[in-house]
């Protein structure tokens, strides 16, 4: 970690190297990867020229198969072919059961987050998603001609903390450096906004395979400010398929179907649905689903009747989102995203609702990945003068459990992120040394109706009389929309230790174990590589510090502080000539910590210079430990 490499904000420390960065749309049905090349953001294709990778992972054979090949075996191996795993990301066993039954998966009977039982053993949605991401990762490396510097992964705006965390874990498992989790509708707005140089208010209506999102943004000189967002993380084209499949089965006299036949019925229904976007009437041959199945005719009208309630449900979310946005004007543009917006009824209903002809110029399948790639390109520093900035919001309120199972809101939905909120607690018993906190996400008043995110215990509170301790808990939602919690006891300054136990999802340890597992087959010269990497970060720190001392050492450090840093640097320099990886690592970390205050002052100074008229307090005591 090159702590001292502070350039002016927005300026890349290495101006001449173009870094490789991609945007990845990890979809329920299809996934894509895009990159900015030659100044244009475009999707990257595989050897056969296909951009879309079906989000399907098969565990039927030896090693997992991904994409079209996996999809081909879905009817023969329903339980081993995982489709639409995104619907299970970060979800608990209990609330996923119904969905799993419909998809013919077997879930492992265990507490906590979902695992599918397949021929290859238990598989989590995170692992399955990582397989998809690995394929896109490889595709990007070979197309762009080298290792990636980072990736922006998109998530539905309406994803909660656990779903976001699961997505980030999957990307880490796939060996990607995650620059940012970006909301899908925001990505789409970027793709459109930049293209058209628009100013004004944009509504993004994104109906994909498994999720629905609506976002309202204001675009102003390259700044995209999300005003409100809403949606449903389990509503999409899959549900259109299910409605049509149920109707077809009814027409055929409600036959009992095996898991494989049910899968086949679903894919027949999907094909019919897609055809109905172009044709008024379609004939479905059910003999392809089960022996003796009849041919059933369906008109677009009938189909529209089946999906009408679902479309209405999306409009309700639109209405709420508009209200939340507190607009004082009409929406200027409506952008359509996602394959399911090809359904004529959807287009008409959305057009009616906003009283605007929706924009469909950019391929609705690709627009999210294209926008994500633009953001990735900026984040790795390829566009030092770029104006673009995305200001996003938290989609669901964060709260904590209070007496009687009620929720007290801490951060209301649609608050711009990053956001930090602090809250004070006290003890209710004499000598109490621990306090339990339960964090939930959602809009309802009862804890049981909200999503449980984390439970943690504050321990080590100094014993005092009841009500004397003042425990400050700080909740911080970062730019990825992920929550971090810290706590201190204020009267004594004691840092109460916080153990955040995710209710679902993976703990860092679990990710670490999975990473080690997936690396265990890797090269023999692991230790040599590790030494080289450790040395490299040591050298980088030294280089960065030398440059920093040269530039600002006199202005920002006392003679003592400078001497202390220089002693640490000499020590590191000596160690770098040895083979002792542990010692190098330890000294790099120590020196990194020692230089934190200096780094903070430099950052403070550079922001101050950029904002004439704003002075910020020096940060040495302000930074969290």
């Amino acid at each position, binding site marked *: *970690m*090159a*702590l001292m*490499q*502070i350039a002016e*904000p*927005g300026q*890349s*420390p290495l101006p001449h190297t173009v870094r490789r960065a991609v945007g990845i749309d990890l979809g329920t049905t299809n996934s894509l990867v895009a990159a900015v090349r030659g100044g244009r953001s475009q999707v990257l294709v595989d050897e056969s020229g296909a951009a879309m990778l079906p989000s399907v992972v098969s565990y039927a054979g030896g090693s997992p198969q991904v994409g079209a090949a996996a999809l081909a075996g879905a009817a023969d191996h329903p339980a081993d072919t995982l489709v639409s795993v995104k619907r299970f990301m970060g979800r608990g066993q209990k609330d996923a059961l119904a969905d799993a039954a419909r998809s013919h998966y077997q879930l492992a009977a265990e507490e906590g987050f979902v695992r599918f039982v397949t021929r290859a053993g238990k598989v989590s949605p995170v692992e399955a998603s990582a397989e998809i991401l690995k394929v896109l990762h490889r595709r990007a490396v070979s197309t762009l001609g080298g290792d990636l510097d*980072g990736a922006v992964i998109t998530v539905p705006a309406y994803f909660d903390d656990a779903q976001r965390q699961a997505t980030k874990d999957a990307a880490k498992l796939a060996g990607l450096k995650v*620059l*940012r989790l970006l909301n899908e509708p925001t990505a789409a707005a970027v793709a459109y906004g930049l293209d058209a140089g628009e100013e004004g208010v944009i509504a993004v209506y994104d109906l994909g395979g498994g999720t629905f999102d609506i976002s309202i943004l204001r675009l*102003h*000189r390259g*700044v995209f*400010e999300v005003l409100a967002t809403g949606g449903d993380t389990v509503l999409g084209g899959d549900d259109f398929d299910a409605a049509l499949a149920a109707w077809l089965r009814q027409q055929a006299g409600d036959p009992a179907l095996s898991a494989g036949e049910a899968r086949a019925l679903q894919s027949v229904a999907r094909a019919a649905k897609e055809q109905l976007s172009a044709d008024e009437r379609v004939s479905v041959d059910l003999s392809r689903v089960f022996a003796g199945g009849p041919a059933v005719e369906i008109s677009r009208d009938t189909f529209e009747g089946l999906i009408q309630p679902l479309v*209405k449900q999306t*409009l*309700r979310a639109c*209405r*709420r989102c508009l*209200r939340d946005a507190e607009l004082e004007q009409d929406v200027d543009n409506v952008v359509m995203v996602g394959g399911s917006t090809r359904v004529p009824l959807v287009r008409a209903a959305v057009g009616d609702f906003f009283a605007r002809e929706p924009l469909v110029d950019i391929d609705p399948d690709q627009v999210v990945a294209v926008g994500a790639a633009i*953001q990735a390109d*900026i*984040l*790795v*520093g390829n566009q030092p003068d770029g*104006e673009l*900035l*995305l*200001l996003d919001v938290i989609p669901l309120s964060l709260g904590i459990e209070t007496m009687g199972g009620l929720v007290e809101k801490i951060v209301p939905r649609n*608050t*711009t*992120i*990053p*956001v*930090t909120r*602090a809250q004070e607690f006290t003890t209710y018993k004499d000598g109490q040394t621990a306090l339990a906190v339960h964090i939930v996400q959602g809009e309802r008043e009862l804890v049981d109706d909200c999503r449980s995110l984390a439970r943690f215990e504050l321990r080590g509170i100094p014993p005092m009389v009841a009500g004397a301790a003042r425990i*400050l808990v*700080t909740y*911080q939602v970062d*730019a990825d929309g992920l929550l971090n919690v*810290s706590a*201190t006891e204020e009267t004594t300054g004691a840092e109460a230790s916080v153990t955040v136990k995710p209710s679902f999802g993976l703990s860092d340890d679990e990710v670490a174990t999975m990473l080690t597992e997936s690396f265990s087959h890797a090269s023999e010269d692991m230790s040599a590589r590790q030494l080289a990497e450790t040395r490299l970060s040591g050298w980088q720190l030294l280089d960065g510090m030398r440059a920093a001392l040269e530039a600002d050492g006199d202005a920002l450090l006392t003679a003592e502080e400078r001497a202390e840093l220089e002693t640490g640097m000499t020590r590191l320099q000596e160690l770098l000539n040895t083979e002792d990886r542990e010692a190098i690592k330890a000294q790099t970390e120590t020196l990194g910590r020692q230089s*934190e205050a200096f*780094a*903070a002052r430099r*950052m403070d100074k550079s*922001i101050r210079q*950029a*904002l004439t*008229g*704003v*002075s*910020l*307090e020096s*940060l040495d005591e*302000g*930074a*969290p430990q």
Partner: protein
Amino acid sequence: MSSPDFKQNYFELFDLPVAFSVDTAALGARYRQLQGEMHPDRYAGKSDLEQRLAVQYSSRVNEAYNTLRHPLSRALYLLELVGISGEDVSRQQVDGGFLMMQMELREKLESLGELVDPDTVLEHLITEIGDDLRVLRGTFATAYGAGEHSAAAAACVKMQYLDKLLREAEQLEAELSEKRA
């Protein structure tokens, strides 16, 4: 406050005079400028520490912007600047006349369900509350500007009552339109 304490108050941070009436265009422009410098996206390739600091700076700017953007939170903040806390405000005595009016409005709101045409009545009610709020904001601005802080606090607590009522009325309106759709 665990985020680094900027020496300035929110108004100074946004280059605005310390007063109830704000130039919303200037507020928005300054907000975008500040985030343009401090947002974590501007530090994506930098060290962990810088990223952490950027999250704190940027949070602080968001907090300030949200406080200044909404009239009620702005009024509360202005009072805080002169040493009147939110708790002090809620402890303010409210005159009987206002309480009566407030109760009448609330009763109207609660009996809406029994009406044949609740929408028109509700719309009226919302306009009425909105008008009252505007008057109170004027009172607050004048009192605060003249340094009459307790009069300002008295206006602020009424704003709080009406703001709550307005939000309930709007919620009802939303539910009604939901039902119709």
